[in-house]
């Protein structure tokens, strides 16, 4: 229920968009709760995009984890 799946916006159609979940699965989702553009990655829940995923932030988080862990260990 609170499950949300990440996918990529491939086409915008007014308040809906086609989201590609990879492996050939694409679905139309409602985008009225987010401001998105083609190419954005979103979390989809119950047929709605609920938030944009920040790819850069994702990479930085991992780098940060590694850094924190090495510091805490000292």
């Amino acid at each position, binding site marked *: 229920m*609170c499950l*949300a799946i990440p996918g990529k916006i491939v086409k915008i159609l007014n308040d809906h968009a086609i989201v590609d979940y990879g492996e050939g699965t694409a679905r139309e989702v409602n985008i*009225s*709760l987010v401001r998105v553009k083609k190419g954005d990655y979103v979390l989809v829940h119950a*047929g709605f995009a609920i*938030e944009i995923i*920040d790819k850069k932030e*994702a990479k930085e988080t*991992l780098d940060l*984890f590694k850094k924190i862990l090495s510091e805490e260990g000292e």
Partner: protein
Amino acid sequence: MLYFKDKVLAKTILGKIRSNGKKLNFMHVCGTHQDTLVKHGLDTLFENSGINICQGPGCPVCVTTPLEIEECILLAKKGKIIASFGDMIRVPSYNGSLQDMKAEGYDIRTVYGIEDAVNIAIKNPSKEVIFMAVGFETTAPTTSAIILNEPPENFSILCCHRTIPAALKTILEMGELKLDGFIEPGHVSTIIGTKPYEFISREYKIPQVISGFEPIDLLMSVWMLIQQINKKNAKVENEYVRAVNENGNLIAQKVIKETFIQVDKKWRGFPTIKKSGLELRNKFDKYNCRKVFEEELKTLKEKEFLEPSGCRCGELLRGLITPQDCPLFGIRCTPEKPIGPCMVSIEGSCNIAYMYKKD
């Protein structure tokens, strides 16, 4: 997001957690967290490191009350179309589930989201279509978006939306178990942000970390909680920064405010929790099935609906027991023949425990 499955990093974090050596008790409130914990065997790894993590009331279908299911059953019997999520439809009530009613010929539809229910209403203009709107803050704005978009007049909702922070407070107030920290639900938090949790850390001096759903996320969140405890901190930290920001989704919050008021609400396994539910504002009465069908629903008002006999979902939802503590688990109660909602829902801890059973 393959890099969130980095095994070396996972091992490093686990090593740190192990070396900490403290016995700690955490609670999360999310079915997807439970799934990650059990599926990847993290629950056992944590236990062996002295960390116990229980689920709490984090399954929207499970905390929906028998009365709410009975409301839908009654309306279905009166010839209306009831639409809801698959898990909700399979939860047993007194005389079976909505799914059983479907087998008897009543019009019950499984939908993926509220928009599908609206489409059913458009296709069936001569019928009343009721969407059983369950879900936490993640789902509530999807209901709002539809209500604000003027769905057809033969469409209404039975609002069962509930909000998480009020339940966390209640868990602490009830004082039935000693908790050292909360792992907060990532997807609820994409909507509400980090601030609505702050009063809990402030008032109850308890650390909280908002977590993502990959094994690394949970490992890191546990490590962050331990760090807070060691440093005698009690604050809200955000591990899931790739999807959650401090302010949350402002569009979603705005539509929630426009459509709903906060109401006191009973949760399965809990007493009525102050301001823990959402109900449509008066100006949307024509979409509020409790108002539209007030007369029909009246008969349920005085009745009291108890939990299924022998089912311990209430204690599970309060984090007091594990599924295996229920004598019916896996014997009389299985996903094929569930007795309580925690065995039905893929977010319920009994269902998850059964699916990934180790023997």
